[in-house]
């Protein structure tokens, strides 16, 4: 039944968007982490979405295929008193772009809401179908 596929599709989108929201949260939380577990400044992470068929070819869900580290150079701040400063007094900060992460967060939460609404509509239609003939 195709309406059940709608659940799968919207559910996969919910999972993907919540993963994206998680990535945003860790990027924002670590926007000032000059030392991460490997001793280098924190690198921003981004999720990669791709469409995957679900149930049949017409139903395309979303899946996070990989989580990539942003390889762009971090911004350099002059702070000679910091223990992480190099010989010229510069500290390499994480390459997290806070503005970008905020827009990412808004986009992810809106998409999450929309897909939750899609699921709700599908549920209502299925309930109507169950009540057919009564």
């Amino acid at each position: 039944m195709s309406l059940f596929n709608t659940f799968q599709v919207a559910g996969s989108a919910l999972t993907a968007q919540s993963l994206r929201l998680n990535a945003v949260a860790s990027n924002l939380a670590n926007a000032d982490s000059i030392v991460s577990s490997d001793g280098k400044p924190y690198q921003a992470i981004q999720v990669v979405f791709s469409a995957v068929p679900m149930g049949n070819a017409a139903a395309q869900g979303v899946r996070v295929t990989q989580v990539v580290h942003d390889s762009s150079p971090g911004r350099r701040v002059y702070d000679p008193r910091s223990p992480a400063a190099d010989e010229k007094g510069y500290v390499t900060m994480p390459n997290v772009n806070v503005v970008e992460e905020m827009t990412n967060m808004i986009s992810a939460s809106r998409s999450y809401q929309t897909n939750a609404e899609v699921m709700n509509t599908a549920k209502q239609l299925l309930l109507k179908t169950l009540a057919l003939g009564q």
Partner: protein
Amino acid sequence: MLNKLDRLFSFQQQALSLRAHRQQVLASNIANADTPNYLARDFDFAAALQQTVAGRRQDGVALTRTSPCHLPGMGDSPVRLAYRQPLQASADGNTVEMDVERGLFAENSFFYEAGTTFLTHQVKSMLAAVQP
């Protein structure tokens, strides 16, 4: 008798299953609104319904069997999906326009509900006809 009942309900039943199919296609578009290079898809409902009522499925794609051991394969989609022409193409190659998709999704769910209502009333009038 059952044959006649079947014929009475079959139109609404086919319309409903096409609506359900379209609901799933539109849900896929909404789900992939942030997927790069995803192309939004849809089908012409009126044409698909006419084809279905006329007893022709639009897919017409069947696997060639070169050995009797091969399983017969048919496209499981009852309709031929087309790609939507975007009004404003986005930079990442995604052609989903949320306002269009949301509008069509709401319209489609409305018509699905209308279909269930029609079917319910048909059932009720048949029940009234068979009351002693």
